[in-house]
């Protein structure tokens, strides 16, 4: 019985250009993309953390690396990814607790996630990078 239910044909729409992803959907895929990007850049971040703490000399080279315009852009992107993952994650924890699961609140909370994570990125970026 249960096996039949699993094998039942379900309708699929794989015509991707015809799908308009709503904001909570964009939030969701960005949650995954940001997590994957942070994972891929973990060695870079651990290396930065290490050079910032090892000795005054490595700290100076850490400051030079972080001060380079290219790393500033990469780090600002990573801060945004972190903040997005953080804010979207809190939203998911609230959804797990059945807070804000109706369509209207879910749309509103996804707007809040984008606004807060971008604001936090600008504040932290301004403090730390510039």
């Amino acid at each position, binding site marked *: 019985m249960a096996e039949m239910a699993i094998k039942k044909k379900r309708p699929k729409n794989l015509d991707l250009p015809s799908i308009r992803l709503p904001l909570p959907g964009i939030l969701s895929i960005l949650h995954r993309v940001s997590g994957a990007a942070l994972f891929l850049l973990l060695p870079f971040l651990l290396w930065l953390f290490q050079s910032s703490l090892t000795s005054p000399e490595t700290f100076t080279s850490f400051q030079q690396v972080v001060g380079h315009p290219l790393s500033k852009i990469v780090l600002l992107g990573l801060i945004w990814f972190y903040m997005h993952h953080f804010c979207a*994650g809190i939203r998911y924890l609230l959804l797990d607790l059945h807070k804000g699961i109706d369509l209207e609140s879910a749309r509103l909370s996804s707007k809040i996630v984008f606004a807060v994570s971008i604001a936090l990125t600008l504040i932290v970026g301004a403090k730390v990078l510039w």
Partner: protein
Amino acid sequence: MVNRILVGAHYGLKDWIIQRATAIVMAVYTVIFLVVIGAVGPNSFESWRGIFTNGFMKFATFLFFVSLFYHVWIGIRDIWMDYVKPDGLRLLMMIATATVLVGYAGWAIQILWRM
């Protein structure tokens, strides 16, 4: 052929809970870290290092790293399960992910305790 039904029996519930528990640990640490940075305003090697030689922050940072690597394991494993269909390749990706994460954990501990 596996004869059990792979839904409805709480397979993966443990990982689901760990993913959320580690997220909460990291979220709390993030707030503590930002408050400490804001309060100390580190502008030199000594003041920056002083944050992490402090016993509480060293302990909290260690907990953050442990949570981070476990959280990353579950998240990246889910990505491989969603997109990598050939079993052999998927297994290889999972082993590679677990291997680098264990390595990163050793590296992070070394950074914190060599100071």
